[in-house]
């Protein structure tokens, strides 16, 4: 019984210690990011790495979700005699919920694992120590550009997912019941306004922060050789995805309150 209690206390302790260390890490990165010299070249490289190279995956995921939503929505709405609501239901489902979340999870998997593994590999081979020994701030050159790139690219990638989802959702619908794209968009956005999807798109900057921060944190504190690298990559994806979903619970409520 005592062992179980001690073990539980130990786990709680580790949990808070992890958060504390993450907070310190975030502060170090923030300080490094706002003080010159700025690593513009590295930031541009990371924008390409996070943004351009995630484009095909996000496009494909968005397209697949668009088709799935189209098939499911059409079936459900037809049952309830609300087939005319199909375009609006697809637009709202994609832009408000599925587009941001799917983009976040796809990028968390691809970019989170990539950053976590890359930095973990650098850590176990002492490359990060070599950077620090060369009087270069590793938070400035490694972490800050990666986190900034994630923050800046997530909203743009979300728009890509939304666009591909709408396109393929329309296409799937047209195969069953012809509907011009113009009619589809017109009908779908008839009752929409900017507040319907802009906050949901820009909330993905928080996703980007979560993905970049956790991946960099886990990567840069890795220990234990190849096993450690694998563990860092896995933890980066799992924790980033988990916190992304949890943060969405809070942000959805916040958006509904601020933008009723």
């Amino acid at each position, binding site marked *: 019984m005592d062992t179980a209690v001690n073990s539980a206390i130990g786990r709680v302790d580790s949990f808070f210690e992890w958060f504390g260390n993450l907070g310190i890490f975030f502060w170090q990165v923030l300080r490094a990011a706002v003080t010159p010299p700025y690593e513009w070249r590295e930031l541009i490289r990371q924008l390409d790495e996070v943004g351009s190279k995630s484009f095909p995956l996000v496009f494909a995921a968005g397209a697949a979700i668009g088709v799935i939503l189209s098939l499911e929505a059409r079936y459900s709405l037809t049952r309830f005699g609300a087939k005319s609501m199909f375009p609006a239901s697809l637009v709202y489902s994609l832009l408000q919920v599925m587009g941001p979340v799917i983009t976040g999870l796809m990028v968390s998997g691809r970019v989170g694992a990539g950053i976590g593994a890359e930095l973990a590999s650098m850590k176990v081979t002492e490359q990060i*120590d070599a950077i620090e020994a*060369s*009087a270069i701030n590793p938070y400035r050159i490694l972490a800050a550009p990666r986190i900034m790139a994630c923050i800046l690219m997530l909203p743009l990638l979300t728009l890509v997912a939304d666009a591909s989802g709408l396109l393929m959702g329309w296409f799937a619908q047209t195969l069953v019941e012809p509907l011009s794209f113009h009619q589809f968009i017109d009908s779908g956005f008839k009752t929409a306004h900017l507040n319907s999807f802009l906050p949901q798109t820009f909330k993905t900057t928080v996703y980007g922060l979560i993905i970049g921060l956790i991946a960099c944190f886990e990567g840069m504190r890795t220990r234990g050789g190849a096993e450690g690298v694998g563990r860092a990559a896995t933890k980066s994806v799992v924790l980033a995805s988990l916190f992304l979903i949890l943060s969405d619970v809070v942000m959805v409520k916040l958006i509904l309150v601020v933008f009723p």
Partner: protein
Amino acid sequence: MVTTYDIAMKQSESKKEDSAPIVAVKELRKSFGDHIVLNGINLSVNRGETLAVLGRSGTGKSVLLRLIIGLEIPDSGSVCIHGQNIVGLALDQMGEIRKKMGFLFQHAALYDSLTVAENVEFPLAHHRRDMSRSERGDRVKQLLAEVGMEGDLNKMPSDISGGMQKRVGLARALALEPEILLLDEPTAGLDPISSAEIDDLILKLQRERKMASIVVTHDLHSARTIANRLALLDQGNVVIEGKYEDLQQSDIALVKEFLKQS
């Protein structure tokens, strides 16, 4: 008017500066959990001097170098660079100190996504923004020529051998013209010929640059070749410190055993 007294005072101050240790470690303690690695050691190195730190594997030699460059924080004690205690300094302050130091890691720690030339250029690109790209390029070629790697500029670290990686690591460590050079097992894992080449290279650089150097090694032959003084670590303490002849004349059992087995 400058008098002969003024000149003599200046020369005297200059001599004092030269004789004051550039690196001084006092009562340094470090442990990892229950394992005590360093138990209150005292060492110092002057300008133009090479100190070899010897000992069996796991005696804290590499930890000592990491403490000196600030990659580890000691439990107690001080690490003084030019008289300034660097323990507890913030990262940016530590950066100013590190610009005066060059560190060769045991496995070179080259950046594996950069070419040989880019690796050497890396510290220059960040700290010598006053240099043009072509000036940096010339400096990189000069550094690589010093270590005999001028023909391998565009190779990746994975394309070159361990000995060649150490040469590139050494060139990178020298990029900012450091006053202090820290070398972690520079000949570890190398064949005897490559080891001798690295030793000759270190000697040549020492003669030319007059840096204060600390070399961590378990290779006694290498230590004898390149070092002015040797210090033997065991169980967290400095067992003996002095010239090789002092070690030979020592009655300490561990020293005799170490010399016999090397």
